[in-house]
């Protein structure tokens, strides 16, 4: 079990209904964490989502460590 913090932005923030949550999880990768949250929230289909851990882009297979700060990144649209 690891304790992590998650921040939601944009379409995911509005869907989940809050910007941040603290979570204790049995997930061992960020991909597993996403699957767990997707099951709970039924995230909207938004295309290819990326993930960042501690303010850096990571692969979905990246291990989840106690204290990690995780952000799921739906398709961006700057400019």
């Amino acid at each position, binding site marked *: 079990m690891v304790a992590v913090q998650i*921040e939601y*932005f*944009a*379409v995911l*923030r*509005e869907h989940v209904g809050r910007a941040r949550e603290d979570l204790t999880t049995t997930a061992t990768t960020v*991909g*597993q964490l*996403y*699957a767990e949250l*997707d099951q709970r929230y039924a*995230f*909207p*289909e*938004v*295309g*290819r*989502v990326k993930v*960042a851990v501690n*303010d*850096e*882009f990571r692969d*979905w297979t990246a291990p989840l460590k106690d204290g990690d700060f995780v*952000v799921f*990144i*739906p*398709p*961006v*649209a*700057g*400019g």
Partner: protein
Amino acid sequence: MSHFGFSREPFTPERFRALVADPVAGGYASFEGWVRNHNEGRGVIRLEYEGYEALGIKEGSRVVAEAFERFPIARAHCVHRLGVLDIGDLAVWVGVTAAHRDAAFAACRYIIDEVKSRVPIWKKEHYAEGDSGWINCEVRPADAPAGSVPP
């Protein structure tokens, strides 16, 4: 100093243009993204930009650093607005100086293209009809490829 930043307040290009001034520079190329009153056939009345700032500054700065590696430029900077914007407001500014205009144009184009596709910024359009949508995130059923949402 980082070469990429966010601004929660309206800004004018002049302030940042001064940052890229350089006596070796013979050419200054800039690009500004403005909020336009239409998108894909719909009337737009205002926009909201939301950014993941900590990662956005890192990724935006990487983009500008790549431009320095690829093109012989003197200085470069990019600033992106966050918050609620009206029609005509400045959403993003890129400025590049170089001894010659080839490099200034190429680097300016590189930066805006990469910033738009890589920096974690999201745009919500508010339409004349009263509805709104997150750009690039509103997947209609027909558009959604199976398994497109990871993992």
